């Protein structure tokens, strides 16, 4: 009999200490956790660190997840809380300094990618936090508006509005020189 791989089943198995289920949960939701952390922190490496730490913490508190089928919303609340704490701690360190992290500079393609990342982060900084979460979850993570609405506790219409406004701002910010960052899907 095949194992139930629904999120709620994975949560139940992970709660019982099943490493495969825990890995699958992380595999499915870590990018979303990263997206929310990135929306708050606007710094790639910090967002990765916070997403990992928050996810590990969430796995230790699975018994407090009262609605396992709404695991993503529960997880993202933990991530957002941790990210806000991290942002508060590093308040003296302006995120703009971190934009365009130059760790990949060395190869031309890597340098170009780092520069592109910097422009994207700079443009994202112009958005409201909720709009950043929506655009990252939708355009980076590939979530639907229904999924975003459920996880962020907003309506689907609100999610669409946030995305529409976010894209307008981003397009204006990125400008004509950045049209390569936009493509139809």
């Amino acid at each position, binding site marked *: 009999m095949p194992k139930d791989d629904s999120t709620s089943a994975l949560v139940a198995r*992970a709660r019982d*200490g099943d*490493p495969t289920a*825990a*890995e699958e*949960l*992380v*595999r499915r939701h*870590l*990018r979303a956790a*990263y997206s929310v952390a*990135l929306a708050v922190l606007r710094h*790639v490496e910090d*967002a*990765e660190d916070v997403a*990992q730490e928050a*996810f*590990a*913490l*969430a*796995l*230790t508190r*699975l018994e407090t997840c009262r609605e396992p089928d709404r695991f993503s919303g529960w997880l993202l609340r933990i991530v957002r809380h941790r990210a806000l704490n991290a942002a508060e701690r590093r308040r003296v360190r302006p995120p703009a300094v971190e934009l365009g992290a130059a760790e990949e500079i060395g190869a031309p393609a890597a340098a170009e*990618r780092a520069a*592109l*990342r910097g422009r*994207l*982060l700079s443009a994202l900084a112009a958005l409201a936090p909720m709009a950043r979460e929506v*655009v*990252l979850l*939708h*355009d*980076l993570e590939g979530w639907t508006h229904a999924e975003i609405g459920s996880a962020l506790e907003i309506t689907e219409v609100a999610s669409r509005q946030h995305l529409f406004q976010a*894209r307008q701002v*981003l397009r204006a910010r990125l400008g004509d020189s950045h049209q*390569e*960052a*936009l*493509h*139809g*899907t």
Partner: protein
Amino acid sequence: MEPDRLDLSALDPSRDPERWERLVRSVASRGLARARLGGGVRAQLVAWWRPALALAAAAVALAWLPSLLPAPRAATSVADPVLSTTSWLLRERSPETAAAIASIGVDHVSR
């Protein structure tokens, strides 16, 4: 139908699949290890909580028990009036006032 989608792949942390998979495993194992540790502490607390509670309840019951039992009646200073009167008659002696009061009780005297 969705309109244009922004290409945010430059921000995608999973663009290196091997690195991402290592990260996924690391987060899962870290989380489970912590959960086991936390679960162990919780299990110890639960294991000790019940006997400790039972012990405390027994101690309270032992301390409370004497108050539930009927207190032994204090020795009355009131003598049995029949015996006292019989004794006085047999000895042909009139009782002293205090003894008479003691034998019939103060309550009766005050009324």
